[in-house]
């Protein structure tokens, strides 16, 4: 990867060894790269603040999932029961009913 692509990882302290040295020597020689590094540092401050935002599943979410899962479980059980009773023909009827 190019030095430009590694700058963000350098800003977060993820780079080690040869990659880190390559970025540091490029930074010494380039005011443009130093300016980009500052922009990355500002971006990570913003990302850290955004990561703190409380984004939680809405109220009642679990109940809604449980209802959908119950339907899936019921249909699965019904399919098996009908399959036992009437084989492929029964399965076709259930499939048809689900579409109605």
């Amino acid at each position, binding site marked *: *990867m190019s030095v430009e692509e590694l700058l963000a990882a350098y800003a977060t302290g993820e780079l080690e060894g040869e990659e880190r040295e390559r970025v540091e020597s490029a930074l010494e020689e380039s005011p443009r790269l130093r300016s980009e590094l500052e922009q990355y540092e500002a971006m990570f401050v913003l990302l850290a603040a*955004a990561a703190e935002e409380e984004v939680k599943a809405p109220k009642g979410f679990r109940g809604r999932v449980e209802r959908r899962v119950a339907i899936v479980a019921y249909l699965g059980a019904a399919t098996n029961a009908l399959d036992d009773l009437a084989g492929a023909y029964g399965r076709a009827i259930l499939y048809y009913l689900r579409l109605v």
Partner: protein
Amino acid sequence: MLELSKTMKLDDGALVERAKSGDRTAFSQLVARHEDVVYRVCFRVLGSREDAEDAAQEAFVRAYKKLDGFEGRSSFKTWMVRLSMNVSLNERSKRKGTLPEAPMPAPAPDPERELLASEAAARVHGALQEIQPNHRAAISLRDLEGLSYKEVGESLDIAEGTARVWAHRGRAKLREALSE
């Protein structure tokens, strides 16, 4: 309630095993533990709370249907994040070209810190919508959820090195988007 209290102390692996054998209370416990991260992942990909709820519900329903295929090679959380990513990215590609609604910051009870966080989040979410989906996914998982590159790779079903490249390239694009 007795069933619920019995499952309270079980780890995810044990709950999955119980859910596989038909214990829906165990599955509900898994939903309770992971609903926030699943919802957040969907929200960050889709940029709308309503779409995020639909996608998060769908991710859990798919998880229930595919539970027998979960072998525990990654954690249940990573597996759920992967499902959520797949559902959200598919949904996103279906309505390619339509702009997401402006992300609504969560209502903050008051403190200045929460206000700053929600303002920052609105800026970041807006900019994230401008970069390509694989880069957005990698940044959301790495820089917002704090996953390791290994976990990002497992969540997106890609090699760890690819996860690293996607995050690096995505950050460069995000920086450009934020400076516009």
